[in-house]
Structures are given as C-alpha cells and as structure tokens.
C-alpha cells in the first residue's frame, strides 16, 4: 500500500489540461508552409525527390494525405518550405489536406460536410472500433496512447471498444493489405447504423510508401464515404483527438 502511494505521489496529475492548446516540441512535424514565391524549377526538383509523390509537380502543393513527414523537401529547400509544429491537421474534407504555396491557415473540419446525425448522436459519446489493416503498429500505439492518462480522450466520451457491435464507427490504420480486406469489410458490416469511418495515418489515407504495391486492396476506401482524415506518420494523439473534437463540434 505504501509503495503504491509513493509511486502515485511521484506520478502527480498527468492529464493534459487543454488538448486544444497543448504545446509540442519545436521539431514536431506538423502542418507545412510553402513559400508563395517558390519557382517552377524548385517545384520540379522537389516533386522528383519526394519519396511518396506528395508534392504536386505543377502546383507545388503538398498533399498531407500522401506525406510521410520526412522533411526532406524542407532540408532541400529550407528557405521555401517549413514544417511547423501545428498538430491540428485532421479534417473531414480530403481537399483540405492539400497545402498550396502561400497558404498558412489552420486546417479544420468543414461543418457543412458533417452528417447531422453524427453531431447529434456522438457529441458526448463516441465508441470506436480500431481496425489495423496492414498498419506498422506506430499508429495503433498512438491511438492506444490517445486514451492514456496524459491525453485522456475518455474525458470527451471517446473510447475504443472491443466489439464492432458496440461501436459507432471504425478507425482504420494501415494501407489496407489484401489479406485484411475481407476482415475489414466484415467488421464494418457488423457496426450498427449510423456509423462513421476515420482514417488514421498516411498509410490509411493514401497507402503511403506502400501505395501501388500488389499486396494491397484499397477498394474499401473507394467504396465508402470517409468521415475524418487524420494525417501523420504516425498520427499524433493530439491530431487524432482534436480532429474528432472538430468533427463532433466540441469546443
């Protein structure tokens, strides 16, 4: 008993007070800012160098749904690209993940795209079933961390449940391997309506570094409406929780 009390005394209060404003390390790779005066030639060399074709060779935009946040574009042209440590990069509008040169505005959810029943029913209680479909376990670990003593998304009634039958939606991680395609379908079918789909991490949103390999089957993404995109490699718990709060209209 005394040992527990000693450990808990050192433990103190661990919950992050405000998940909207919590600071992260300066080097955290969040929303990038691309200079408005980036030249065509610079765009060409950056687009050719990007390992995941996240940089558009015409517009020079960075697609956060494809980006693995390796920062090599910033290392190549530090005066033109900066990855800020703004972790609020989740959105429900896939186009909202495309960052254009000259654009330095926060990424948020578009309230008009949110189904009315989602905010009405899940605002105070959102139970999610996680499906790892080829994920490398970094996103899965971060999603697990989102419920820990520090991030505590449970304070908003958000938690992961053991059965799809108990869930209001699924959170997919991983590029969706062919070997998981059927299990993903079955899990989704088992979730009662109304339900939502969240994609967490670059691999889930676009396939990431695995996009194009024959071992994947991403037809699920093509056949279903996605309610929230949470970029990252892996998606940081703060990105995930803030994204859901935005989706649900929590202040």
């Amino acid at each position, binding site marked *: 008993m005394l040992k527990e009390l000693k450990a808990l005394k050192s433990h103190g209060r661990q919950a992050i007070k405000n998940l909207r404003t919590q600071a992260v*390390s300066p080097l955290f790779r969040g929303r990038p800012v691309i200079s408005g005066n980036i030249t065509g030639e610079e765009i060409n060399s950056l687009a050719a160098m990007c390992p995941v074709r996240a940089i558009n060779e015409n517009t020079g935009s960075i697609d956060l749904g494809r980006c693995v946040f390796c920062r090599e574009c910033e290392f190549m042209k530090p005066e033109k690209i900066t990855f800020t440590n703004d972790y609020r990069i989740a959105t429900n509008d896939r186009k909202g993940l495309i960052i254009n040169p000259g654009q330095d505005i926060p990424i948020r959810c578009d309230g008009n795209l949110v189904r009315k029943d989602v905010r009405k029913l899940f605002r105070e209680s959102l139970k999610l079933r996680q499906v790892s479909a080829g994920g490398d376990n970094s996103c899965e670990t971060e999603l697990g961390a989102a419920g820990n003593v520090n991030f505590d998304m449970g304070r908003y009634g958000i938690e992961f449940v053991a059965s799809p039958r108990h869930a209001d939606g699924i959170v997919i991680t991983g590029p969706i*391997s062919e070997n998981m395609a059927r299990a993903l379908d079955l899990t989704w079918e088992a979730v009662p309506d109304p339900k939502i789909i969240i994609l967490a991490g670059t691999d889930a949103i676009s396939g990431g570094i695995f996009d194009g390999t*024959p071992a994947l089957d991403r037809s699920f993404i093509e056949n279903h409406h996605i309610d929230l995109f949470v970029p990252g490699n892996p998606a940081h718990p703060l990105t995930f929780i803030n994204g859901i709060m935005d989706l649900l209209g929590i202040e």
Partner: protein
Amino acid sequence: MTAVKMNQKQFTVIRNNSPSSAVSEIPLLDHDAFINLITRSLKDEEKHCISYYGVRFKERLTLYCFIADDSNGSINVFAHEPAVNDPLLKSVTAEFSQLHIFEREIHENFGVKFEDHPWLKPVRYPSHRHDKAQTIDNYPFYSIDSEELHEVGVGPVHAGVIEPGHFRFICNGEKVLHLEIQLGYQHRGVEELFVSMNNALQRCILSESIAGDTSVGHALAHSQLIESLAHLEVSEGLQAERCIALELERLAIHIGDTAALCGDVAYQPGQAVCEALRTLVINTTQLWCGNRFGKGLVRPGGTNYPLTGEVADAIIMMTDDITKRFGEITDSIYSSPSVLGRFDEIGTMTRKQGLSTGVVGPSARMCGIDRDIRKSHPFQYYRKHSYQPVILETGDVLARGMMRNLEAFESIRIIRKMTEDWRDKVKEISKPVYDYKLKPESFSVSLIEGWRGEICHSAMTDINGNIIHYKVKDPSMHNWSALALAVRNQEISDFPVCNKSFNLSYCGHDL
C-alpha cells in the same frame, strides 16, 4: 559461384557491421553437404540460424544459409542450388525445429518441397507466393475430432487496439491443449519494394515502416547494411548516437509493455504510472528528432538530427526521472500479491523448448538462453561497450515482466554511459548519404539487437551494384512459435497476459 570440390572450404565467414563480401566467395554445396553442414552446425548450442532463404536470379534459384557463431562473433555462409524441376530438399526441421520457419517460407515463396518437414504451414500468404490458390481466407486450421473439446477462434480483428492475427485454440473446458497462430494479414510486400524501389530515400522510409514500433531498430539494420555494401564508415560519435536512440526505443517499449501487462491483470496504478513514464521517454525522442518513434532519425552515412548538448541534457534528466519513478512503480508491481498471482508460473516455456524453437532476444533470455547481439556480434558503438545481457531462468510471464524491468535499467545505464562518451567525441556532422554506390556482385548481412531480439537485414547486388534481393528478418519470425508453446495447458483466460508478455510483431513477421 563455383561448386565446391572435396577439401575446399565449406562456408565463407563474415562478421556483423563489416564491409560487404563478394557473392562468388559463398561456396555452393551439393544437397548432402548442404544439409550435413546445417545439422552439424546446429548441434552446437552457441550457433543458431539467423537467416535462410532463396534468391531467384536469372531463372536460377539459390538457397543461402547464414549460421551465427556466438562464441566468436562470426557468421558462416553457404549455399545450395536445388534441382530446377521439382526442387526437393531433406527437411532439417524434424531434428532442429528452429529451422521450421525458414523452410516453410522457402516452400511458400518458391514451392521447394522439404521431405519429412512436420508441417509446411503457410507463413504469410505473400502476394508473390508460389501457390496462389491458397488464400488466407480458406486456411484449414488444425483440428481434433472430439466431443470433449471445443475450438475458440480469435481474430484477425482482436479486442484491443492491436494488429491482426488469428489464434485458434483447441480447449478442454478452460484449459488450452493447443494454440495455432496464423499470420499474414499485415503483408504489404516490403521485401519486393526494397528491390523495386531503386531509391535510397524511399528505402529509408520503407525500413522505418516495416514495424513502426521498431523504427529505429529496422532503420539502423538497413543503414548498417547499406553502409556495408557501399563500404561507407560513420564516425564514433554517430555510432554512439544511434545506440542511444536504439536504447531509448527499447526503454520506451519496455515501460509501455509493463503498463500493458498491469492493465491485463487490472493493476491500475501500474498501468497509469507506466503510461505516463512511456510518454516521458518518447517525448524525449520527439524533442531530439520531431517524431515519437524516431522516424527520420537514422539514415545511412549520416543524420538529419545530430544529437546536441541540449538534447543530451534532456535525455539525462529524463533518465534520472525514470530511474526514480519506474523504480518506485516496479517495486510496487513486483511485490503485489494480486499481480504476482497472475504472472508467476503462468505461460512457462522451458529452456529446452526455447532452444528447440529457436527463440531470440528477451524471449530467449527469460528462459536462460544467452542470446544478445549487443554481446555476441556487437555493432555500432556497442563494439566499445562491453555488455552483459540480463538472463532469467523461470521462463514464465513473471520472468518476461522482470525482463522489461531489468533491461529498462540496463538501457538507462547504457544511455548514460554512451552519452557521457559522446560528449567527448569530435562532432562531425555528416548528412545522410542518398547517392551511395553499392559494390557489385556483393552481399552483406546486418544484425541489430532490437527490443524484441535480433533483427537481420541482408541483401545482394548485381553486376551494376543494384540490389537484386533484400531479406528482412524481424525477431518475431522466430518467436511467435514460443507463444504457441507457452500457452499449452494454461487457462485460456491467461492468453492475453501471455500474448502481451511476449509482445511480438505482426507486421514485422508479415512484411
């Protein structure tokens, strides 16, 4: 490669973290000589197979076997070309089960038959498998016909937030008679991508994505392999930095695993405190390189995130904090009767079983097997740091839990010592090398002691120095069978704590 005549050497010898060798130096043995050499080698407990695979190049299939000799830090390499039509080898698995996974993989990828192999179970249903008619959805699980037994199937989607795999239990009431594990759900085609992606940066990103919880481990195995094939050297300072990053990864996971084990036995203070401590460690990695898993930190030839004095100070401060608080909570955990009641003598694997099934890493060390690459085949800055592995004898969940505890403090000791050494080193900031040229017609092997055990990356180049074959071996390849053995005759309700006590990688196995 020329076929070996009598009296010629039977294998070539290489060492970990050394420049690559010519493929032509690998002796090509006939069937009997090949099989005999494997069996003779494995009779010695200090030798174990670190990799054994097939390479198809220009219509020829060649099998390469790599046996590590822990007694002198060397790796013996030899090869065999099976028959073109109906390739058949005698299976060594019946005598040495540790080879089962390799023979099954060769069979799955190339259709090579292994005579008298006890069970050529599919490994991962890769997209390029030899028999495409077999799919993961129609796998026939081992079953026993009895009215007293029932089957319990778990997965691929499990209760927790973890990766998928299928566990098929055959139970008598609550007692597990047999567990069969089927993996492959996470297969993404990693090895093919290493070959087809003829781009250094893409390969780096790929290496970090093999198993994201072992980003530093796999990225280091890859970088070390590339440096070997390109005959690149890195400074001692950078070698020390890499080891510090590897130990930070080990420390974070061991604390996180302790939290998970506490959670599974409903010991809330243990779970809550350890979760917070893990955050402390990975946030330190994030302070260093901007990513909680160390993605982006390790690159061939250099780094984008050289360690700074400020980050080094933060690391030391963090280890002070962890020493105190992890020490307090583990003191509490391992003296709590309710926890010990759930850990002690649960999920036991004997030393004999461990040797037989070929376990590596903490899963080996927890049942008395002294296997640790940091000691036997030291790499990077471990070559300057004599390391004694933590060895426990009882082989149960308690031993695996204690492994995390003791190794965490070992990691802290290593981090502190190496950081101290690093401060005295000349700081040569070298950027990553992406335009490396690999030696032609060469091969190399790179061994790293990741937190789950030995990681082995190996590759072969063609006449132009292009990679024609890349093999990844995550320690989970060896260790999944240990879990299946450990739960026999245990209560099925103890399965979660047994599974978590091993904490093996699904994606590392499936590739």
